[in-house]
Structures are given as C-alpha cells and as structure tokens.
C-alpha cells in the first residue's frame, strides 16, 4: 500500500501573531514552524499502518525551502520519502491543484491531509483534492481501518459520530483521535541519522493561478477588563449575565 501524507508547516501553537508592512504580510520573525498538529496525527497513523500492515509513507509539502526541516522531521519519525513541490503556497486552490497534479501521475492508495491547518484555518485543501481527483473523501476522521482495498472510517460530526466505508483510493481529513496524543513520536538520534539517507525530492510546480488573495490583516479589538464578582455573591453574576450581557 502506498500512503501520501500532505503536510503544512504552521506557526507553533504558542506563537504570537504579528503582521508587517502595514499589516499586509504575516511577520515570520521569531516564529517557530512545526508540522500542522492535524497532519501530525495523520502522519503517525500512516507510520502505524506501515508497521502493522506494511506500507510506504511519503510526505508532501507545497511550498518553499524554509519547510525542509519540517519535512526532515517527518522522515526522522518514520516517513520513507519527502517531496516538496517548489512554489509558494499562494492559496488553498493552488496547493490542491499542485497536489492533485502530483497524485495523478504518482498514484497512492491512501492520501492523508489534516482537517484544517491551524494558520489560515481554511479547511479546504483535502476536499478540493477529492474533487480534482474524483476520490472518496472522509473528513474529521477519528478512526481508520484498512482491509484490502476498502477502508472503514469514523467521522466526527456536529453532535455525533458516523462510520463510513469507502473503496480505496481514499483521502481523509485527519485530526486528534486518529491516534492519541501519547502516540505522537519524537525524532530520536537513530531516526535523524536515517533521515539523511532517505530520498528528498524537490519537484517543479505546474502552472496554477490562485483564486483568492489576502489584501490585509487585522487584530481583534482589545478586550475590556474582566468584571470580577465575589465568590459569595453569585446573585450578582446572574444579574450581570441576565441584564448586562443578556445571555440568560
């Protein structure tokens, strides 16, 4: 079985978000980039499938060389090959277009992407790939079992879960639950050494034009200070929620 994991590189969750040049661009200064958490759950599941049922795991990123250390980390925790499509990830449409083009000439049985990347929170790329390549797609996937050429996936919905079955090739949107937090792997020395020997391909991008363009960023308005209510005056809290905030 061949598995492809699509990785986006995002600011570490504790990053302070700042903008530059009149709020036109995201300021990367001092920001540490990591594998998007939703993708890391998917990658871990892929490595687990490799160990359990036998598979090769490739990781793919659309973007510039600054993401290479993140791809190397993926190799160090068990992926077999890294591929970077060398073009700025201008918008979700371009990213999906590049990935779709790649998998059409390099077919995979299972494609794993995250349910959303935590930077632009788009939640768009996997569905677009599914449409472009006419693949079955299960989003918010919290359980995945492969049996021969078919898959059983559990999807978390608003207010419930459903189990879906689909034939491979399949694309999923992964999130926590697919593996537990404690299953995530940290690269060890051996893994890091091995990663240096693994194939790392940088492939040219195809022509593709974006359908959206960010013109500027804004920060939310600063918040008024919290109103503290003494612990022995619950009535006051209820009164405030009812008459001031009007939420009761």
């Amino acid at each position, binding site marked *: 079985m061949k598995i492809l994991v699509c990785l986006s590189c995002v600011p570490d969750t504790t990053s302070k978000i700042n903008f530059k040049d009149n709020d036109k661009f995201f300021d990367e200064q001092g920001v540490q980039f990591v594998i998007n958490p939703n993708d890391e759950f998917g990658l871990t599941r892929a490595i687990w499938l490799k160990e359990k049922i036998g598979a090769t795991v490739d990781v793919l990123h659309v973007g510039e060389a600054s993401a290479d250390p993140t791809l190397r980390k993926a190799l160090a925790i068990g992926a077999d090959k890294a591929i970077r499509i060398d073009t700025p990830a201008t918008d979700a449409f371009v990213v999906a277009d590049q990935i779709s083009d790649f998998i059409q000439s390099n077919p995979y049985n299972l494609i794993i992407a995250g349910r959303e990347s935590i930077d*632009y929170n788009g*939640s768009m790329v996997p569905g677009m*790939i599914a449409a472009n390549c006419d693949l079955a797609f299960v989003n918010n996937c919290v359980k995945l079992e492969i049996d021969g050429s078919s898959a059983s996936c559990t999807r978390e919905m608003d207010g419930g879960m459903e*189990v879906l079955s689909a034939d491979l090739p399949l694309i999923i949107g992964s999130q926590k639950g697919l593996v537990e937090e404690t299953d995530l792997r940290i690269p060890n020395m051996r893994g890091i050494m091995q990663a240096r020997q693994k194939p790392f391909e940088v492939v040219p991008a195809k022509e593709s034009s974006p359908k959206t363009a960010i013109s500027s960023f804004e920060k939310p308005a600063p918040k008024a200070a919290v109103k503290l209510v003494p612990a022995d005056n619950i009535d006051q809290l209820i009164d405030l929620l009812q008459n001031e905030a009007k939420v009761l």
Partner: protein
Amino acid sequence: MSILLFAESQQGKLKKGSYELCSYGFALAQQQNTSLTIVTINCEETDQLAQYGASKLINLKAKVGYFEANTYASALVDIAKSEQSKIIVISSSADAKYMGGILAGKLQAGYVTNVVELPSTSEPLTVKHSVFSNKAFANTTLTGKIHIIGLANNVLEETTQSSSTTVEQQDTQVAIKCTQSSVEQIQGKATIADADVVVSGGRGLKGPENWGLIEDLADVLGAATACSKPVSDMGWRPHSEHVGQTGKPVATNLYIAVGISGAIQHIAGVNASKVKVVINTDPEAPFFKAADYGIVGDAFEVLPKLTEKLKARS
C-alpha cells in the same frame, strides 16, 4: 446570477445556524443587487425558510438519507450551473466544511471559510474572515469566476422578511462515494456546535467523578458540556468534548470555563464566543484576561450554588 445558499438540515429538521445563514444570504443579495436562491436537501421544514426573502427555494430529494458530502456537493454544482450563480453561501458547520472543499474543487471556485461580515467591497469581492485560530482577521479578495463564502457561526442577528417564497421540489441522484454503516447521534442534548451556552471543565475539577457539577449546571442552562484537552487526553471525558485549537471550535453566546487555566491553545478555540465566564481558584489564571466575567473561587463551592440559584430562577 442569483446568490445560491445552502441551508442545512439534519434528519429533516433545519439546523439552527441555517436561520442566521439565510439572513446573511438576503443581506448579501441586497448588497450585490441580485436575488437569493435557497437550496435545502431532504428538508421537512421548508416553510420556515420561506421568510428570508429568497426569490426561489429549492428542496432537493436525495436518495441518500445521511449527509454524503460528495452527493450533496454534486447536487449543488448542478443547481449552481443552472442558476448561473457566481456567489455561493454555506455555513461553517463540520458538514458544510466537509462539503465546501469538494464544491470549490468541482466548480473551480475561490473559497473562503470563517467569514464574519458582509463583503467590504463588491468588485472585486473582499471578505473578512478569522485566521490564526481567532488571533487575527484577514481581508481576502476573491479573484476567480465563482466564489464560495463560508459564513462563521454566530456572527450576526437573524432577520426575517415579510414576503414569502414558494418551494420547488426536485429530485437528485448522484453517485455515492461513502456508504454509512452506522451512526451515533447524541439525542435530546445540546451539542457544542448548536448550543447557545457551553459549560466546560478543566483539570481543576480533579477527576471524572466530579463531572456531575458541570452536567448539573449545563442541564439548568440547556447547555452543551465541553472540556480542555488534558481532560480528554486523560480519558475523563470523550474526545468529542475537547474544545480548543486542536479540538472542536466554540462560537457560542455564553461560554463558562471552570477550572481551566486558559492556555493560548484553549483560548484560541473558544474566543469566538460572545460572553466568557471564568471560574478559577487562581486569580492569576491567564483565562481571566480573555474573560468578560469571572469568579475567583473554588469550583466545588461555586458550581453547586450557581446551579441552585439558576434552578430557583427558572
């Protein structure tokens, strides 16, 4: 050329967010000097949608009884083509986000999710949407031929119109890609996505045996229950209750956080809620900086009293 809006239903019943979405759709149609077409699929409450000023309301009968994203997207593509729609409006529910990417791919459309306002410019269309897990907003211009707007939850008031719309029934049949083999739907309880109030507990509650305190408060408020990440990692509560940046997003009217310190990843996922109340023993807990109201106090004392008083009130 009309604006096409997809109003979601579940088991025939309209989802709560659909009313807000339709209000947005009408305002958008007015702003863009065009009309609104609402599409529902397998909906049994179309009457309620007739009051949102749409010039057309199409209720599709799909053979598939569950939300099959590919089927739904294909059905909307057909309608978008026949209506020649340039702008399509959907919600930000888990289902809508599941379908949205497929729809955008099939239509080769530009797509923006978590949109919080009406477009600020029309030619080209520019929309404001939240990014970086609610830490910022971006203004994005849609440069393609077809645009999809994914409206964030709970960002505007509902407004109905006086004229009413007639409903057209249509059939649809598209290839199914994923077959549902079982489903588990929480019955009769508010869900994190739909509830007006969410009561959430953190590690400060000490153990799963104390969750009755959270559930009792949620019960009097008709609220959904949620938790911080460590609480679900430790198995005190199911993963589906984990909220925050890597959990479910919360955008409710009232979010009550009990025994939650307010780590940046937690706040990122719940900050879109309108009013936040924090109950924590530690006056230095970071959550107080993001809260509207707070009580510095022990959850084990404050919660029973709060629940009691709210019960007496109702």
